[in-house]
């Protein structure tokens, strides 16, 4: 199976790889997927508490090239967005941007789940 150019580009040059300190109050962490399914994504956002805007993002992904590309792409997309804007990102947008074939749609769904989980985690930390 051939990969789209954009998938290859993200795979070769993944953006925003790494980790933030999970315990940091300004960080929200989402980890989704399961090793048994062949995909695990960890997505972290760093939020400006004053504005509620995501200022930075990091990811680490265990999975196929499309999973790596999907998570790399969303770390770029969420930067500068508010929490609600980020949580509104749809997997179809990711799939379209990366030209994912039908068997790889689950990678984009996982990336959407990862953002939502990261946003939820941040919101939980600040719920009090």
């Amino acid at each position, binding site marked *: 199976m051939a990969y789209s150019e954009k998938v290859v580009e993200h795979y070769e040059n993944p953006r925003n790889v790494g980790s933030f300190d999970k315990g940091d109050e300004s960080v929200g962490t989402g980890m989704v997927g399961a090793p048994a399914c062949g995909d695990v994504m960890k997505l972290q956002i760093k939020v400006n508490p004053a504005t509620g805007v995501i200022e930075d993002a990091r990811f680490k992904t265990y*999975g*196929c*090239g499309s999973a790596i590309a999907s998570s790399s792409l969303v770390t770029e997309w969420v930067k500068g967005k508010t929490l609600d804007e980020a949580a509104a990102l749809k997997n179809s947008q990711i799939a379209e941007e990366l030209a994912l074939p039908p068997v790889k749609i*689950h990678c984009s769904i996982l990336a959407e789940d990862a953002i939502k989980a990261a946003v939820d985690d941040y919101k939980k930390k600040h719920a009090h």
Partner: protein
Amino acid sequence: MESTPHFPIYMDYGATTPCDPRVVDVMIPWLREHFGNPASRSHAWGWEAEAAVENAREQVAELIGADPREIVWTSGATESNNLALKGAAHFYQSKGRHLITVKTEHKAVLDTMRELERQGFEVSYLDVQEDGLLSFDVLKAAIRPDTILVSVMFVNNEIGVIQDIAAIGALCREKGILLHVDAAQATGKVEIDLKTLPVDLMSLASHKTYGPKGIGALYVRRKPRVRLEAQMHGGGHERGMRSGTLPTHQCVGMGEAFRLARLEMAQDNAKARALHDRLINGLKDVEQAFLNGHATQRVAQNINMSFNFVEGESLIMGIKGLAVSSGSACTSASLEPSYVLRALGRSDELAHSSLRMTIGRWTTEAEIDYAIETIRQNVAKLRDLSPLWEMYQDGVDLSTIQWTAH
């Protein structure tokens, strides 16, 4: 080999081997001027084609210590497996309707068994040990009074382990049960002598042993005689067991490939052994890397390794200079990893993290060195990207995590 592109480096000999140029050369005349139908008994065009097919049949028989009359041409090992299993099950069903096979068999055996189950046969699918080998005791315990056939592959296509066919065959003989062996991955790699090896039916493939695709054979023992019900009906070719005009050029190609395999097996194996060891040595100090399948009871041509915390398909994408395959099923619609590795008791993540490298007649030391280098680099790169590796480094036990399965 000048006719083969050298990049990406071919390390997928288990999928198919290049056709040896010497094989191609002997095939061509039978596609050009010598086009006769080997079944044409009334003229010289047919006679010469028949002689070529019979010569090839002898060459195939000779590699496995069989009589040429025990060789039935088929379109390949899948058809041979179908003919052997369905043909024997249908013929002997009045004796019993229970069959035994192993969970790590090729799909051509497993799917055929499933079809026989739909037809009312009962099939036992045996577990293998962690090293991929079938335990003799497990087989013994599975045999019932109504068992008519056991099917065990000689060399596993994914992990390269060699089953103890001599012992399995002796047990089947003692119990009066037929033994079918899928030897698609064994010819040219393992010595096979059916004069002494107690096997009743053996599936053979051409294209895994440097012959052309689209041709194979089924060995059907004459003494004691094994009977099959034909699955392909027509002109009564191949003593009624498999009708259809024989493709002379294909038969000749497989014959030549098997003749070369007989002459060159020792040299091919010695070379493959050295390359196998070189590859293993180059990768053995990679942390959390595991060889799948028994370490020594395996063909040298197969190296199947799991690189923990790295997903196989992404690794293959990284090592793009190598043509290899993976036990990760991420390329297929299902999310199930290799059923063979799962049958060894490997965890899902290790199954997803596997790489099958299969080498052969034209693999070089330089190619092995390149493979070592690119695998090491990419495993390291992907581990930097892997949340599982990070957790492992932090001492987290991954089995204690509640994953959100999808």
